[in-house]
């Protein structure tokens, strides 16, 4: 018994030592200063130097808070609109913008250089949301596979229902995935309210594979990333080929630019923000050239501000689509749930 008590004491001392040595968050505290909280999604990434320079110049301490994917972010903002979880939000996309606007999540702010943002990206005449970047969800192909199998590369959405592309396409589900939802909207735009379901019937007949998330589709089933999968056609982004470049500068994959759907990501000052002035400066920062220039490398999207140069490799392997599809945000908000339900009945019923 005494040996046991002795051991217990040692264990107790050890526990105190562990806690005291900083292996604990008890006692960890925020440093003071003017903190501004930026609420964003999981895909947000920024060059450390660029953010640090902004913090130095502005005297602000930017705290980043992530809230899941773009859909989760929008819904968290709506849920907490009476006691916002931050001062400024970035990453609400065109699919969910209407919901946040209807619910009064954002307050108007017109940044200095908002004139440099193409009008086609604007979603709100009251300037509660400002476009920061533009992404394109597109069908991607593994070029090597098509060369090796001597099959012509597909170019359009319609091609994917042709027998020669049978069993080659994998797409994340619109029920569980953001790019998957964008692709559903893409097909609604391309084939209309009456035609999209026929198109999907064609995809199903052509043995399309539906995965829950983009990760399984792109990282596991697609043959063009890491070369492990068995499907050479996948739904991803216009920018994905830049992540698959080889040492000689060419990319193993290519985005089919006729199949793209545009998603604009917005930033805005939250209504009821505790630091509204600082929040406005963060929006300015997101539209600054230094931030816009690093958007491609860090978030795989195109800058929204006009004439910001993209990296040389981007113009070569990932040019932006000229005329991507896009649906009116209010229509998306109104119909989204019905389309998803119809898709579910059709494809997974």
């Amino acid at each position: 018994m005494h040996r046991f008590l002795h051991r217990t004491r040692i264990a107790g001392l050890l526990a105190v030592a562990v806690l005291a040595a900083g292996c604990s968050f008890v006692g960890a505290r925020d440093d003071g200063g003017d903190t501004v909280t930026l609420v964003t999604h999981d895909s947000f990434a920024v060059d450390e130097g660029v953010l640090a320079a902004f913090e130095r110049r502005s005297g602000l301490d930017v705290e980043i808070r992530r809230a899941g994917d773009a859909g989760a972010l929008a819904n968290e903002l709506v849920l907490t609109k009476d006691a916002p979880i931050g001062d400024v939000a970035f990453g609400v996309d065109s699919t969910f913008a209407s919901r946040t606007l209807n619910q009064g999540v954002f307050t108007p702010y017109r940044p200095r250089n908002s004139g440099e943002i193409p009008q086609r990206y604007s979603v709100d005449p009251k300037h509660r949301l400002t476009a920061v970047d533009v992404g394109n969800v597109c069908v991607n192909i593994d070029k090597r596979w098509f060369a090796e199998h001597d099959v012509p590369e597909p170019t359009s959405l319609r091609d994917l229902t042709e027998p020669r592309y049978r069993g080659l396409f994998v797409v994340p589900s619109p029920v569980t995935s953001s790019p998957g939802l964008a692709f559903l909207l893409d097909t609604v735009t391309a084939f209309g309210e009456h035609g999209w379901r026929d198109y999907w019937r064609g995809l199903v007949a052509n043995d399309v594979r539906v995965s829950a998330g983009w990760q399984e589709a792109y990282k596991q089933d697609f043959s063009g990333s890491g070369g492990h999968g068995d499907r050479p056609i996948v739904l991803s982004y216009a920018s994905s080929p830049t992540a698959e470049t080889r040492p000689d500068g060419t990319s193993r994959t290519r985005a089919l630019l006729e199949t793209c759907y545009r998603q604009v990501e917005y930033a805005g000052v939250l209504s009821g923000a505790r630091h509204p002035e600082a929040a406005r400066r963060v929006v300015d920062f997101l539209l600054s050239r230094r931030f816009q220039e690093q958007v491609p490398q860090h978030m795989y999207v195109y800058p929204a501000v006009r004439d910001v140069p993209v990296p040389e490799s981007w113009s070569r392997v990932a040019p932006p689509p000229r005329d991507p599809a896009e649906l009116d945000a209010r229509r998306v908000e109104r119909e989204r749930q019905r389309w998803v339900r119809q898709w579910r009945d059709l494809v997974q019923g």
Partner: protein
Amino acid sequence: MTSSLSGSRAYPVTVGVAAVIVLGFLGVFFAWPVVAILGLGLGGGVGDVLADPATWRLVAFTLGQAAASTVVALLAGLPLAYVLARVAMPGKTLLRAMITVPFVLPTIVVGMAFRALLGAEDGNVGAIVLANAFFNVAVVARTVGGLWSHLDRRTEDAARSLGASRMRAFTSVTLPALRPALGAAVAVVFLFCSTSFGIVLVLGGGRYRTLETEIYLRTVRMLDLSGAAALSLLQLAAVVVALVIAAVARRRGERTLRLRQATDTARVPQGGEWGVVVAAGAVLCGLLVPIVALVVRSVSGDDGWTWAGYRALTGTGAGALEVSGVEAALNSLRTAVDATWMSLLLGLLASAVLVSLRRRGSAETMDAALMLPLGVSAVTLGFGYLITLDTLPGQLRTSPLLVPFAQALIATPLIVRMVLPVVRSIDDGLRGAAALLGAGPLRVRWEVDIALSARTVLAAAGFGFVVALGEFGATSFLARPDTITLPVAVARLLARPGELNTQLAYAVCALLMVVTALVVLIVERLRVPTAGEF
């Protein structure tokens, strides 16, 4: 029988304070947020959801896959529990560490491994069941093995010498004695499987859905709070029913046992016992397949083998993370340390209250209340935090401490489940003898209860630590970018294109396995010196 000598008579205040601490924590960090978010959704639409036959198909599938997974986990876990408890062999420490590793792996990674291994690309119920079982074998092996190693072997031997077959001795002597631990394991595994999220999503291909995945989709993607509330209520009801069944099973099983030192009960297997050892070996191989697969994945690149992922561990994956892989490992350890001491404190206080409560009904109600967090969706809790905790002082809603709080909610019931059967099975005669020798009630607790259950408490602390290391749902929701843990880092990395991000994700996963195995090995080292306790 378990409460004939209880602290409540002598020290009602102490027990009362302990109860207030435990229930207070549960109230603030569980009941209040959950009730608040359910309250937002109640009213319109709930009736429609309940009237929809699709809802009931969802309930049936949820319970069915959980029951099947529990059976598989039990069948696979029992041979391992036997080997851990009864077989004298070298390397048992390593074995215990190895079977614990699956428990902490991120579900997205395990899901993808099973998806590839079983060819389950289009959604496969069998793969869901196997993957759920894969995660929970450790729960069965550890919970049951813990009690088994303390059972007096001589009772079985007596039955054998009286002519009972090995099987008969097992079913009529050992199994009844193990019932409290079996009941605990089944309850916990069933709850884990019925709220399994990532596995169902990945291996169900979006086609197979459970209450948990549907609550997530309705809450996070559709903001259909009334639909989510209706489904959450159903989930809660199912959990309560499962807990009541488990409590009834336990009530019939719990009794005073002659607990023995574990080293006394292990020996070299004889005759047919080797069959069980072989079965345990087969289970172990099954557990290793997905683990080996993901280690292989971490070193395979476009053009053959590569260490690029491991070399990148000191970096942030091209800005995908705010911290490096190594820092994420430190975050994991810090968070888990906090969660462990919190859950150990709560778990021991709760166990003390539970053995002291004289009324069986109140003890069981409190016991069930402690288990509820295992059966509630992480996203329900997370959204509940968002709308409630801002009214508390100290910016708790965005504090890094919120992560260990949430993890402690999940670890505490597991600790109670492991400690309580042992404490309850302690012979009251020992307590009486100590009291007779002049020990006060607290001293009795210390010298008898704590001393006899010290091994289990330590094992429970280690398991709580492991639970915290592997927790994903609540952590990914609550962790700030600079305090993300290893499982969250894996998920974030996998969400980005590029071969290097993939390799780094799998390298982070391997790091998580190494950290887990080391923690288990250290805990095992601490356990050995307590051999003189009896």
